[in-house]
């Protein structure tokens, strides 16, 4: 394997390829891609994968360099743009932004939307740039690492994700786990992707299963809409939230002062991004959970703690660069968006693989450089819109509710051009509304929907491979990486149990004092 060709001193080569990026046309394309990407990202249902797929036909008529710049800038910006609707409307633009919605929206509701958005874009920038540098400098080392993940490892990673379900955004571990179980069940609906068995298909519209985006919009947006409408047409002018302007410098210093969250987020984003199949969907949530564990302000998470936003957004964007590592060096797309980008590269006759940087060095580097410049543009445009976008909270609830509903229906429909998805979204949303009255939260439920298929399909594949090899136990429970992951799972469970016990003791002590 000749991926060594892009190692060593040659890495600084990227500096020589900024030429084509800094031309008038290129900058116009980059700016257009960034603004368009932010808007597409902020639209519920238009995930980065979808946005890049929609843009590919537009690159047909461009030169390869310009086409890939557009895709690179749009990818960067859509990932960050998803946070806008997550923070302002509590509708995560894509699964990656769930964790951002938890604290970001609480901040926006207090009138700190500008601050939340500024912190979010600064964190996105930090994470994004770190991710791109990992892509530039560590690709050869990490490509092999990324390929090494097999079904047994993916299974344990999914289980590691399950261990955080209980503690995510809920008051009680039991309710969190119950919600997670419902999520796992929803994920089972449809044809099982490996064996083709029918499960819980009562209507032909459920044959394809419940699409994650439809579920996401329904679970987050619909309960909010109903709650807003509960208030009726009472005039809210009196109690309108005051939107506090926030200085960008303060946002920078706040983000830097919380470097612990930023470090955790970037690290987790890079690692998760590298693992093919895990995708960015869980990077934000895992980072959020870890940042909380290491934070002295644990109890403030979920009530508008900026550390939560920082951890989630650094992780989401740090994942972008590393997720392209297996794509560019081995032609193996590591995430759904990378798979779509592969199509975009191929259509221009560029074959990713060990020889990419020798044969098409100019195009490949221009693409990577556009990802890097895209980060800067995303930061500039993001900060610019943060100030006025925050005023969304001042829209009267009945109007905001109808706006969210329209966006939600549009988003759910557009994913698969399917009206059935809109019905699914509505049903799930209505159910979630009643569940939320009993103290359940949508975040663990969605995590169940995401992790269920990963755990299941990898278990089934692992079992088939194990049958041909040394048996189930040997396949899943031996080998360094498996043991390391199992240790992490055990540590995570032990930590949750310990915290729960300590909390109980603390509460009963308080009760005794009172």
């Amino acid at each position, binding site marked *: 394997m000749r991926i060594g060709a892009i190692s060593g001193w040659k890495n600084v080569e990227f500096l020589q390829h900024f030429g084509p990026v800094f031309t008038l046309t290129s900058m116009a394309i980059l700016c257009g891609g960034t603004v368009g990407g932010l808007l597409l990202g902020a639209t519920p249902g238009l995930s980065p994968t979808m946005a890049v797929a929609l843009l*590919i036909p537009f690159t047909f008529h461009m030169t390869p360099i310009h086409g890939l710049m557009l895709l690179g800038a749009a990818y960067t910006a859509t990932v960050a743009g998803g946070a806008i609707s997550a923070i302002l409307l509590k509708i995560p633009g894509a699964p990656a932004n769930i964790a951002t919605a938890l604290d970001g929206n609480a901040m926006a509701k207090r009138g700190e939307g500008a601050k939340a958005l500024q912190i979010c874009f600064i964190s996105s920038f930090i994470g994004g740039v770190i991710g791109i540098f990992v892509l530039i400098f560590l690709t050869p080392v990490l490509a092999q690492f990324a390929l090494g993940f097999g079904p047994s490892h993916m299974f344990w990673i999914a289980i590691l994700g399950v261990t955080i379900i209980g503690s995510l955004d809920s008051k009680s571990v039991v309710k969190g786990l119950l919600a997670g179980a419902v999520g796992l069940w929803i994920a089972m609906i449809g044809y099982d992707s490996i064996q083709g068995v029918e499960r819980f298909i009562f209507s032909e519209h459920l044959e*394809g299963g419940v699409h994650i985006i439809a579920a996401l919009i329904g679970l987050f947006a619909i309960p909010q809409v109903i709650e807003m409408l509960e208030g009726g047409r009472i005039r809210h002018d009196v109690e309108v939230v005051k939107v506090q302007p926030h200085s960008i410098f303060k946002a920078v210093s706040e983000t830097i002062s919380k470097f612990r969250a930023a470090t955790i987020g970037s690290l987790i984003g890079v690692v998760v991004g590298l693992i093919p199949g895990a995708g960015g969907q869980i990077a934000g949530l895992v980072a959020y959970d870890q940042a909380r564990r290491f934070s002295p302000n644990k109890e403030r998470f979920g009530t508008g703690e900026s550390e939560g936003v920082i951890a989630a957004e650094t992780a989401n964007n740090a994942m972008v660069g590393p997720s392209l590592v297996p794509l560019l060096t081995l032609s193996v797309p590591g995430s759904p968006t990378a798979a779509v980008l592969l199509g975009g590269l191929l259509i221009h006759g560029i074959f990713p693989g060990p020889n990419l940087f020798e044969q098409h060095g100019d195009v490949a580097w221009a693409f990577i450089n556009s990802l890097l410049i895209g980060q800067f543009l995303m930061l500039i445009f993001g900060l610019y819109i943060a100030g006025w976008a925050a005023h969304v909270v001042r829209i009267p609830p009945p109007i905001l509710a109808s706006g969210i509903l329209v966006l939600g229906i549009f988003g759910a429909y557009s994913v698969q051009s399917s009206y059935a998805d809109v019905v699914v979204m509505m049903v799930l949303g209505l159910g979630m509304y009643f569940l939320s009255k009993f103290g359940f939260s949508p975040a663990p439920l969605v995590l169940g929907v995401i992790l269920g298929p990963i755990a299941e399909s990898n278990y089934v594949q692992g079992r088939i491979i194990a049958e041909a090899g040394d048996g189930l136990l040997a396949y899943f429970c031996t080998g360094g990486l498996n043991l390391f992951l199992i240790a992490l799972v055990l540590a995570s469970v032990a930590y949750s149990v310990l915290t729960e016990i300590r909390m109980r003791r603390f509460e009963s002590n308080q009760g005794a004092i009172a």
Partner: protein
Amino acid sequence: MKKFALGMAALTAIAVASPLSAADYPDRPVSLMVAYSPGGATDFQARIVTMVAANEEYLGQPIVIINKPGAGGKVGWNNFASSSKTDGYELAAYNVPHFIAQSIKFKTKYSIDNLEPIANWGADPAVFVVNKDSPFNSMKDVAEYAKANPGKLTVSGAGLFVGHHIAYLQIEKALGNELKYVPHKGGAPAMKSVLGGQVMAGVNNLSDAYRSRDSLKILGIADLNRNEEFLPDVPTIKEQGFEVDDSSVNFRGVMVRKGTPQDVIDKLAAKVPEMFKNSRVAKQMKAGGSPLRVMTRDEVKAMWERRQKFLTELLAGL
């Protein structure tokens, strides 16, 4: 959002459509349903082969791609065969052997009996691949290993009852010993597990294997002839003495629902193959490593019937 606008234009146009005659067909944009997600091989090729549709010598109207993915194509095709219009403005892309195998194996609303082929644009044969570090150098080595270790040789592929699986079943039969099929969620993850050494071998698309050829050994092609364009040095599996024909080759093309007026079908059947032969289409397909094989309506019809017969026999015992 030009695509979206076009889609809306198409929808509005459909709503106000009046009965038509083939003389002025098509007088508005035509949609093409793809049963797989955006960015996948079928979607990506469908976009390339339809990009010149608006030229006067072809349809004179653009073709808009609409994705309806889910359940390996079943969602889109079920929807197409049961509720699409038969006015010639709603086309769909087919994947053979997928949709035929599914119609035999599952209760689907589609089969070759209620669909009408228009033309074929591509044929992607399945290839048998192993990792560069694998001890296998030919299909003979694979056969010897399978004989000594029945049921131990793991082979990845994209799911059940798709081209890869059909090729696997044929190879297993020809080798005469049991192998172990490990279905994946698509061609890319299946290829990844070969490159990462999680499985010992894989059945995958020729186009994808061609792109990863530096990290792989491509041991054989499941087709009747070698692929002169991309892999002239790779022998077919048949050449190596194992009875595997072209039944698993992944054909992609355009179809309409039965009931579409004959004059519209005739017009499409005359224009669409010409569109696939356009030099810009051919150039882009080649650049993407996707083999182009243009077939006319009659040729596709015969091919569908042959596959139907073959797959009914092959899948009978499963």
